[in-house]
C-alpha cells in the first residue's frame, strides 16, 4: 500500500528526467573486491618489513636525535640557548608550535568535517590524516612545554592547587591553548582509535589464522572484543558520529584560539579581526599539503593507486587551491585594511613586511601560499603526481614562513624604534625544529608498519557492491512498479 502511494506520488516531470552522461569517478578503481582491499591493506603490516622502511626509519631516528639532543641541552642549560631575545621573546618556538598545530588540523578536518558532510572520498585518506594529526600535535606540544624553561614546572600550566597559590592567567589565550590543544589531542586520539577498532579486529583474526598468537593477542587487546555484530556496528557508527560532532567545533576552536594568541594583542599586524577564520583556513591548507606530502610516496611504494585514486588527489588539490586562495584573500584584506584604517603603525608594519628586512620571508610566503596552489587550477598539473608532491612541499614551506613572518615582522618593528631588533635563531633552535621532522617521521613510519594505513571497513562501504541501490534507478523502478500495478 505504502509502495503504491509512493508510486502514485511520482509526478510527470520524473518521466522527462534523462541525465546527461557525466559519470562520477570511482572511489575504488578496477572494481576491487572486499577481499582484495583487506589483503592489500593488511599486507602492508603482515609482509616482511621492506628495506626502504628500515632506511627511512633509521634516518628519521637520526634526525629525531636533533630534537632530543636540543631539548636535553635546553633543559640542562636553560632557554637562553634559544635565539629569542627582546623584542622577539616568542621566537622560533611559537612559530614551530603554530606550524605543527596547523598540520595537525587537516586530519580531524578530513575525518570529522568531511564525515559530517558525507564526503565519501575521505575514506581512503582519513586514517593516515588522523595519524598525522596526532603526531603533529605531539611535535607542536614540545615547543611550549620546553619554552616554560623549567620543564618540571610545566604542570603549572594546568590550574592545579599548589602550595604557592599561583594561579594561571585565565584571560590569556595562551592558557586557553592549554585546554584547547589538550582537549583536541585527546579527542583526536579517541576518534582515531575508535575508527580503527573494526580494522584491528580484522588484523587480530588474520594473525590468529596465520598462527601468530602474540600479534593476534595484541591486536585483539585493542580490538576490545569486536565481533562485527549488528549491535557492534550500530554502537560504533553512533560513537563515530558523536566523536565527529565533538571534533568539528574542537578543530575550529583550536586554531581560532591559536590566532587569539596574537589577535588579542595590540601589536601592529597581529590585532586584526580576520585572524580566526584566516588561521583556520591556513591550517587546513597546510594540513592538506602535508597529507599530499605523506600519501603520494606511500601510494607509489605500496601501489595503492586503486584506493588513493586520481580523484582523491584531485579533491585534495582542489581543497588546497581553495584554502590557499582564502589565505590569499586574508593577506589581501589585511593589507587593504592596514591602508584603509589609516593607522600609521599598521600601515608601516605591512609595508615593512613586504619591503623590510624580512621581505625575503614575506615573498617566500606569498609565492608558496598564494601562487603555488594556483597551479592546481590545471588538470594536467593535478594529474602529475610528482609535480603535485613538489608543490605540496612548497605549501609546507610557505606555511612555516607565514608564521615566521607574522611573528618576526611584527615583533621586530613595533611602536618604538628604540625597541626594534632582529631575530637570529641559534643552532639549537634550528636543530630542535629540524629534529621534529624526525620525531614526526618516526611516529608515522611506526604507524605505517603496525597499524592499518587505511580504513578498510569504510573503504568497503563506498564500493559499488556495498551500495544497496546499486543497479537500481528510482525512475525505472517506479515505471516498472507502475506497469506491474
Amino acid at each position, binding site marked *: 500500500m505504502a509502495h*503504491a502511494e509512493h*508510486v*502514485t*506520488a*511520482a*509526478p*510527470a*516531470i*520524473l*518521466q*522527462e*528526467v*534523462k*541525465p*546527461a*552522461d*557525466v559519470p562520477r569517478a570511482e572511489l575504488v578503481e578496477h572494481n576491487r573486491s572486499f577481499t582484495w582491499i583487506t589483503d592489500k591493506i593488511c599486507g602492508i603490516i603482515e609482509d616482511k618489513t621492506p628495506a626502504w622502511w628500515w632506511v627511512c626509519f633509521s634516518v628519521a631516528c637520526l634526525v629525531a636525535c636533533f630534537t632530543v639532543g636540543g631539548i636535553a641541552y635546553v633543559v640542562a642549560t636553560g632557554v637562553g640557548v634559544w635565539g629569542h631575545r627582546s623584542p622577539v621573546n616568542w621566537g622560533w618556538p611559537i612559530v614551530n608550535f603554530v606550524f605543527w598545530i596547523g598540520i595537525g588540523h587537516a586530519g580531524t578536518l578530513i575525518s570529522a568535517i568531511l564525515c559530517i558532510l*558525507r564526503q565519501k572520498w575521505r575514506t581512503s585518506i582519513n586514517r593516515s590524516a588522523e595519524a598525522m594529526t596526532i603526531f603533529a600535535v605531539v611535535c607542536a606540544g614540545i615547543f611550549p612545554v620546553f619554552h616554560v624553561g623549567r620543564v618540571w614546572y610545566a604542570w603549572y600550566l594546568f590550574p592545579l592547587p599548589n602550595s604557592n597559590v599561583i594561579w594561571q592567567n585565565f584571560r590569556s589565550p595562551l592558557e586557553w591553548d592549554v585546554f584547547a590543544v589538550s582537549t583536541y589531542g585527546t579527542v583526536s586520539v579517541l576518534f582515531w582509535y575508535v575508527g580503527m577498532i573494526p580494522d584491528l579486529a580484522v588484523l587480530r583474526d588474520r594473525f590468529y589464522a596465520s598462527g601468530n598468537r602474540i600479534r593476534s593477542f595484541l591486536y585483539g587487546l585493542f580490538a576490545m572484543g569486536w565481533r562485527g555484530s549488528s549491535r557492534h556496528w550500530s554502537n560504533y557508527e553512533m560513537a563515530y558520529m558523536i566523536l565527529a560532532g565533538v571534533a568539528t*567545533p574542537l578543530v*575550529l576552536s583550536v586554531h*581560532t584560539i591559536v590566532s*587569539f594568541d596574537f*589577535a*588579542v*594583542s*595590540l601589536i601592529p599586524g597581529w*590585532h*586584526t*579581526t*580576520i*585572524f*580566526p*577564520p584566516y588561521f583556520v583556513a591556513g591550517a587546513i591548507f597546510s594540513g592538506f599539503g602535508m597529507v599530499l606530502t605523506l600519501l603520494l610516496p606511500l601510494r607509489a611504494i605500496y601501489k595503492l593507486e586503486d584506493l588513493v585514486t586520481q580523484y582523491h588527489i584531485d579533491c585534495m588539490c582542489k581543497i588546497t587551491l581553495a584554502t590557499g*586562495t582564502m589565505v590569499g*584573500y*586574508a593577506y589581501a*584584506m*589585511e593589507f587593504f*585594511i592596514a*591602508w*584603509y*584604517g*589609516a*593607522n600609521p603603525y599598521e600601515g608601516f608594519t605591512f609595508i615593512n613586511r613586504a619591503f623590510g628586512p624580512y621581505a625575503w620571508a614575506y615573498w617566500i610566503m606569498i609565492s608558496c601560499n598564494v601562487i603555488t596552489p594556483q597551479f592546481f*587550477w590545471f588538470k594536467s598539473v593535478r594529474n602529475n603526481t610528482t609535480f603535485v608532491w613538489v608543490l605540496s612541499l612548497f605549501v609546507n614551506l610557505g606555511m612555516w614562513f607565514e608564521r615566521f613572518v607574522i611573528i618576526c615582522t611584527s615583533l621586530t618593528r613595533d611602536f618604538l624604534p628604540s625597541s626594534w631588533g632582529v631575530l637570529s635563531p641559534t643552532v639549537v633552535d634550528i636543530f630542535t625544529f629540524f629534529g621534529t621532522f624526525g620525531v614526526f617521521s618516526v611516529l608515522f613510519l611506526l604507524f605505517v608498519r603496525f597499524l592499518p594505513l587505511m580504513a578498510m571497513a569504510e573503504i568497503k562501504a563506498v564500493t559499488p557492491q556495498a551500495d544497496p*541501490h546499486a543497479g537500481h*534507478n*528510482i*525512475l525505472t523502478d*517506479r515505471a516498472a*512498479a*507502475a*506497469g506491474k*500495478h
Partner: protein
Amino acid sequence: MTSHAATAPAALPAETTTASAASKALTAGIAGIALTIVGYFVSGAQVAAMSWLVGVTYWTAMAIGFLLLVLIHHVVDASWSVVIRRQWEHGLASFKWLALLFLPLLISAWVKPGLVWPWMDLSHPIHGGTVGTDVLYAKKAGFLNLNMFTGMTVGFFGSWILLSYLLRKASFSQDNDGAAKWTFMNRRTSAVGVIVAALSLTFAAVYWVKSLEYHWFSTMYGVWFFANCMRGGLSLGIIIMVWLLHRGDYKGVYNTNHIHCISTLAFAFTVFWAYVTFSQYFLIWNANVPEETFWYNIREINADGSPNQWKYVGIIAILFGHFVVPFCLMLSYRFKTTPVIIRRIAVWILAVILIDMCYNILPALKLPNGDPQPFFSITLLWVLTSVVGVGGVCVWSYLKSFPTTKLIPIRDPRIVESLTHHE
C-alpha cells in the same frame, strides 16, 4: 488508485497560479516603493534614503546568497541540491532589478552627496571639522570617492548579472539538449565566479555599509556579510521549497533528506555567522582601541553614557535572535525535517538578518545631538516599506522566471542521484 500511477498528475500547476502570485508580488512591491516615497516627504530624504539602503542591501544579500549557493554547487559537483538548484537560479533573475533599484541611491550620491555616505560631502561636519579637513578621510580619499564608488557599484552589479546570466543560460539550455558541455561550462564559470563573488561582496559591504562610518575598519567585515548572504539564501531557499511542496510541485520530487540537508547547511552557517560576529566583537572589545570601539559604542550608549535602544537590539536580536534561538531550534532533527517548522525558523532567520542590516546601517543616522536614531522610530516603518518594495520586485522577478523552465534540471548529470538522495 494505482491506475493513477501511469498517468501521474501534471508536474507544474497552471502557470496562471504563478502569474497571479507574480502580479500580487509586483503590486506589493509598487505599494512598498510608493510608501517609501511617502516616507521621503514625511521624514525627509536622508531617512528615506537610509531605509532604502537597508531594503536594497538586504535583498541583494539574499540574491548573492543564491548566487553563492549555485556557484558552490557547481564547484563541488554536488548532487543532493540539484532538485533545489533551479529555484536558486530563478532567484538570480532579480539582480538586474536590484541594480535598477539601487539607482536612486547612486543618483542621490551624485545629486546630493553626503545624504547617505557622509564622506561624499567634503563639507559634512565631523569631529569639530569637516570631511574635507579630516586627515583620516584624506588618507582614504583614493578609495572613498564618488567616481570609485560609482564604478565599483556598477562593477558589482555587472559581475553578478553576468555570472547569473551565464549560470542560468547553461543550466536552462541543458534542459533542452542534455549536453554535458553545459555542466562543464558552469563548473568553469563557478570556479572563477566564486572568487569574483567573494571580492565583489566584500567590497560592496565596505562601500555600502562599512563606509557609512568611514573611520571604522575591520578585516572581518566581508566575511560577516558573506555569512549573512549565505544564511539569507539558504533560509529563502527553504521557504521556497516548502511553498512548492505545499503547492504540490515538489511532491515525489524531493524527500525528507533534501530538506534535512539544506536545513543542516543553514544550521552550519548559523554557527559560522556567530563565529565571525563574535570574533569581530571580541577582538575589538578586548583590544579596546578607541578607533575601533567607537563603532560598537554608538550601538550601546549615547553621548551622555546612557544606554540606547541599539544595545538591546544587539543583545536580544543579534545575540539571541540571530544565533541562540535558531541554533537551539535547529539542533533538533525533527525541527529540521518538518517543513512547517523549518519554514518558521527560516522566516525567523530572515527577520533577524533584516535587524542585523538595520544594526549595521541605521545607527549612522544621527539625531541633532549626535546620538544615533533609536531603533524604534518612524525610520523602522520606512525600512519595512523599503523591504516590501524591493522584496516585491524580487519575488515578482522570481515568479516571472519560474514558469519559463522545467521545475528541476531534468538533464543535469546528477539529477538521478539527487532524486534518490538518502542519508
